[in-house]
C-alpha cells in the first residue's frame, strides 16, 4: 500500500516537474504570439499575458511589407532543396547500400569523412563561384547548397540497407526489371518513412538557413523568412506589435508542420543519432 502511494507520489512529482519545464520552454514563444496581437504602445503599458484585439491590423501591416513574397521565396527554396537533396541522397544511398562495386569503400569513407566539415570553409568560395556563374541574386545557390548533403546520403544508406530486402530486388531482377526500374519501383516505395524524415529535416534546415542567404541575396524581392526577420527593425521601425506579429508568422509554419508529423520526425531524427 505504502509502496503504491509512493509510486503515485513520484508520478505526480514527475508530472509537475515536466509541466513546469514545458511551461518555461514554451513561454518565450507564447509571449511572441501574444504580443503579435497587441497595439504597439499597449505592449509597454503592462505585462501582457492574454491576447489583445489588434491582430488583424498587425497582420495587415506585416503583409504590406512583402512578407507574402518572403514566404513564397522560403517555400520555393525549401521545396527545391528537399527535392534535389532527397533524390541525390537516395540514389547514392541505393548504390552504397545494395551494390558491391569497385571503389565502394572509398566513396562510403569519403561521405563519412566530409560529414564533419563545417560549412564556413566553403562559404567564401561558394559565394564567388556563384557570382562567377551569374547566379548571385537568384535563389538557385540557396538550393544547390543542399544537393550533396553528406548526412542525407549517410541516412539514406542506413534506411535503404535496413528497409529494402535483398530478395525483393533479386526477384524483381529475375522478372526483367532494369536497375533504374528497381530504384523507382522498389527502393522508393520501400523507404517512404526514411524519405519523409530526410525531407522534413532538409526542409527545416533550409528554411532556417541564415548565413548563406544573407551573403548571396541583396534584393528585397528575394528575401527569405530569416532575412525578413533580420530586417524587421528596419522595416517596421518602432511598430513593435507588427514586429512581434512578423516573428510569430516566421515561426508558425515550422511549428504547424512539425506538430502534424512530429512522430515521423522525432523517429527519424533519433534513428540517425542512435545508430550513428
Amino acid at each position, binding site marked *: 500500500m505504502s509502496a503504491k502511494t509512493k509510486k503515485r507520489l513520484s508520478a505526480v512529482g514527475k508530472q509537475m516537474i515536466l509541466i513546469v519545464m514545458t511551461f518555461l520552454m514554451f513561454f518565450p514563444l507564447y509571449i511572441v504570439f501574444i504580443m503579435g496581437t497587441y497595439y504597439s504602445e499597449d505592449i509597454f503599458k503592462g505585462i501582457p499575458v492574454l491576447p489583445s484585439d489588434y491582430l488583424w491590423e498587425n497582420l495587415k501591416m506585416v503583409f504590406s511589407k512583402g512578407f507574402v513574397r518572403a514566404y513564397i521565396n522560403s517555400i520555393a527554396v525549401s521545396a527545391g532543396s528537399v527535392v534535389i537533396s532527397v533524390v541525390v541522397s537516395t540514389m547514392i544511398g541505393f548504390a552504397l547500400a545494395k551494390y558491391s562495386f569497385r571503389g565502394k569503400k572509398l566513396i562510403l569513407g569519403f561521405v563519412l569523412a566530409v560529414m564533419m566539415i563545417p*560549412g564556413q570553409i566553403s562559404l567564401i568560395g*561558394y559565394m564567388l563561384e556563384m557570382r562567377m556563374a551569374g547566379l548571385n541574386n537568384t535563389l538557385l545557390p540557396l538550393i544547390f547548397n543542399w544537393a550533396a548533403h553528406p548526412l542525407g546520403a549517410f541516412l539514406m544508406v542506413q534506411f535503404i540497407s535496413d528497409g529494402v530486402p535483398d530478395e525483393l530486388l533479386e526477384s524483381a531482377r529475375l522478372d526483367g526489371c532494369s536497375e533504374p526500374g528497381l530504384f523507382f519501383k522498389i527502393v522508393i516505395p520501400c523507404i517512404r518513412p526514411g524519405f519523409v524524415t530526410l525531407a522534413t529535416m532538409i526542409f527545416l534546415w533550409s528554411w*532556417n538557413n541564415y*548565413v548563406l542567404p544573407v551573403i548571396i541575396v541583396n534584393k528585397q524581392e528575394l528575401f527569405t523568412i530569416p532575412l525578413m526577420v533580420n530586417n524587421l527593425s528596419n522595416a517596421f521601425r518602432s511598430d513593435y506589435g507588427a514586429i512581434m506579429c512578423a516573428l510569430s508568422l516566421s515561426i508558425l509554419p515550422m511549428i504547424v508542420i512539425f506538430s502534424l508529423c512530429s512522430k515521423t520526425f522525432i523517429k527519424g531524427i533519433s534513428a540517425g543519432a542512435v545508430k550513428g
Partner: protein
Amino acid sequence: MHKKSKSRLGRKAGKWPYLFCLPFLLSYFLFSLFPMLYSFELSFFDWNGIGQKVFVGIRNYVTLLTKDPLFLKSLKNTVILMGFSTPITVILGMLVAYFLFDIGRGRRFYQTVNFFPYITTPVAIGFIFSYLFDWQSGYINKLLVAVGVLDEPYFWLQDEIAAKVIIVIMVVWRYLGYYMTIYLAAMTALPGEVYEAAAVDGAGKFTIFCKVTVPMLKNTTMFLIVTSIIGGLQMFEEPKLLFSGWASVGTGQSGGPGQTALTMVWKFYNDAFNLDSRLGYGSAIAYTLFVIIIGFSLIGFKLTNRKEEKHER
C-alpha cells in the same frame, strides 16, 4: 550463399552503381569541394573581391593568430559559451528524458512542445531573447520589477557576464528538446532485462539510472557531446540577433558589450562580408576554425572515452 548472390549482383549491375553515385559526387565537387579549395587558395591572398589579388603567403594566418586580439577573444568567448552550454544541455537532457521515460500520460505532448525551440528559426530566437531581456521594454525586467526583485530595470545586455549567461540560456533552450528526444530514443532502445536484473538486486530507481542507464548511454552521450562541440563552435545567429534584433537595443553593436558575445563565426562574418570584405583573411579564419573544430572533436571523443573507462573500473 549470401556472398555469392552479392558478387553476382555486382557483376550484373555494371555501370549502374557508378551512375547512382554520380549526382552526389558531381554536386559535391561543384558546390562544396571546389569552393573549399578555392577558399583555401584565397586564404593565401589579400583580396576584397574586386581589386587586385595580392599573394601574401601565410601572412593571413600569422596575423590572425598573433596580431588579431579580437580573434583570440572570439575564440575564448566561443569556448566559454560552449563550455557552459554543452554540459548543461547534456545533463538536463538526460534528466528530463529519465523523467519522461516511464511516464504514462502526456509523453507525446511534452516531447512535441519541448521540441518547438529546436525548430524555431535561430534568427528569431536571437530576436525573441533580445526583446525578453531588453532594458526598458523587456518582459523579464518588467516581471522582476513587478514582483519586487529589482527596484529598477537592469540593463542585462550591457553587462558582459549577463550577456554571456543569456546566450547560454538561449542555446540550452534551443537544444534541450532535441537532446531529450535523442536520449529518450536511446533509452527505449536499451534491453529491458538490464533494468529487471538491477531491480532484483534491490537497487532503487535512481541508483539504477546512475549505475546502469547512464553508462549504457555512453555512445549517445558521446554523439551529443561531439555534435554539440561542432555546432557550438559555429555559434552565430543567436548572439548576433541578440544584439541587433530588438530595436531599442540601439545601434546593433557588433559583438555586444566589450565584444563579449563575439563568436568565431561572427568574427568571420564581419571580416569577410559585413564590416569588411577581406575575403582572403576571412578564408584564413574559416580554415583556422576548421582545424579548431577537428581538434576539439578529437578531444571530445577522448574525454568521453576516458570517463567511461573509469566507470568500468
